[in-house]
């Protein structure tokens, strides 16, 4: 990374620091009770003091997140292609997918625990459930807005349905797909946390829960910091992958 690129993060840095400062001052001034909203300094110290414990939980959560996100990506792409097959399939399956997003954890948790226990599986399922949906919607919308002229061109070549998909529609939908993936990546860590709330022996979600129930709000916030950092990393990773995978699209963005 060149110095120039680093400098690009200047404004982000300035904004972050000022926000932290305001936050610190607001809490210190007693405008918000510090047992509800600890100061950044207190959070930083808690993070430092408990790093050995938090680190183990972070590893666990990261693992669940990455596996779940990978599965969600494949599932999301697959479902988008399936829904794209025909208006009929879309009408039939889309409502199911939407319904899957409205199931609250109270209802799902017992089934998850009974069927899949307390290990990795239920968390991966929750992450997948959280993440596949934005991918499906964005990717499908991308597929559906393929230029009809391009479809005609491929049709004139007697390209099969799959060739049209593979050669024209999927590549054209990739920017939308990545848009969905960006959303999914952001949600994935939260998904793992929720999964760990349901049942876990390890993980940041469990850590937050125990911290919260002993009223150690500062530790909850320390875990949130890690969660946010993980989410940012995944989000950034998606953008980097997009840059590599879609050089033609990236260039448009930069030229602007």
């Amino acid at each position: 990374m060149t110095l120039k690129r680093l400098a690009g993060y200047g404004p982000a840095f300035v904004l972050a620091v000022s926000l932290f400062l305001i936050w610190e001052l607001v809490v210190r001034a007693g405008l918000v009770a510090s047992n509800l909203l600890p100061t950044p300094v207190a959070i930083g110290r808690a993070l430092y003091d408990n790093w050995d414990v938090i680190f183990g939980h972070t590893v666990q959560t990261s693992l669940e997140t990455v596996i779940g996100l990978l599965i969600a990506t494949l599932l999301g792409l697959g479902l988008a292609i399936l829904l794209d097959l025909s208006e009929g399939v879309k009408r039939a399956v889309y409502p199911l997918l939407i319904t899957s997003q409205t199931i609250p954890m109270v209802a799902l948790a017992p089934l998850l625990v009974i069927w899949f226990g307390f290990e990795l599986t239920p968390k991966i399922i929750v992450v997948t459930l959280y993440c596949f949906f934005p991918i499906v919607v964005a990717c499908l919308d991308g597929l559906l807005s393929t230029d009809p002229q391009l479809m005609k061109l491929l049709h004139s070549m007697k390209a099969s349905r799959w060739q049209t998909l593979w050669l024209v529609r999927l590549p054209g939908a990739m920017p939308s797909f990545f848009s969905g993936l960006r959303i999914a990546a952001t949600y994935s860590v939260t998904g793992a946390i929720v999964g760990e709330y349901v049942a876990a022996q390890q993980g940041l979600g469990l850590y937050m829960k125990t911290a919260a129930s002993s009223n150690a709000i500062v530790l909850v916030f320390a875990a949130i910091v890690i969660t946010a950092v993980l989410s940012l990393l995944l989000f950034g990773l998606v953008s980097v992958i997009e840059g590599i995978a879609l050089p033609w699209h990236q260039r448009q963005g930069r030229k602007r």
Partner: protein
Amino acid sequence: MQNKHEDAPKLIVKGVSKTYRDGKRLLDVLEPLDLTVGRGEFVSLIGPSGCGKSTLFNIVAGVDEPGSGTLAIDGDWQGERTGRVGYMPQQPLLLPWRTVEENVLLGLDVLRLPRRESQQQARDVLKRFGLHEFADSYPDTLSGGMRQRIALLRTVLFNSSFLLLDEPFGALDALTRITLQMWLLDLLQMYHSSVLFITHDVREAILLSDRIYVLSARPASVLRVVDIDLPRPRRQEMLTEDTSIHLERELLSLLVKEQPL
């Protein structure tokens, strides 16, 4: 490609018409229309802008269905028409995510030819077209004429036995155009190709064609069919011969009557 009727004309269009629905309005684009392209023939369509030439091409290529009438490629009245023509649409329609070379190879990918061979083929023709420098560029930085040349290459690589070319030289300067016209004539010779050709340049039509169909303003019908008897191989100089100049005047005056403006 089926060749049931070895001696049938390459294309027969019989009473084909087309009406579009634009919102609530019905738009008659093609009146019932007859047209034939013989084997190895070069047939041009000329007609006013918006009269329905591209529409007819879409129908011939099989990507649109006629409102009425029937057509046959290689004497086959029933079968699918798609896949049997090299169709070059009016817009270059390059894929922004494919490099120039990959765009040229699109048709061969659809035919599932192995990349190795086709790649060499593509490199060769790109060189011939003065585009080898840009083989690895993405199309969005190319000039208008370069894009058009790439679209033409993609078309002939896919299928050169029957070409549907919709204003293939429209964005090219006079000289590049002449060079490519000659290249095209050579190619046709070599592969005994048949061509249906749209142009707005009457002189180009005269230079290249065996027969010219003059279409009326929308809805298009055939105003006149003109056979061009110039000997082959054709040369640019033939355009300044008296017969050519006479023909050019005649065709233009036919079009004048159709001018809607």
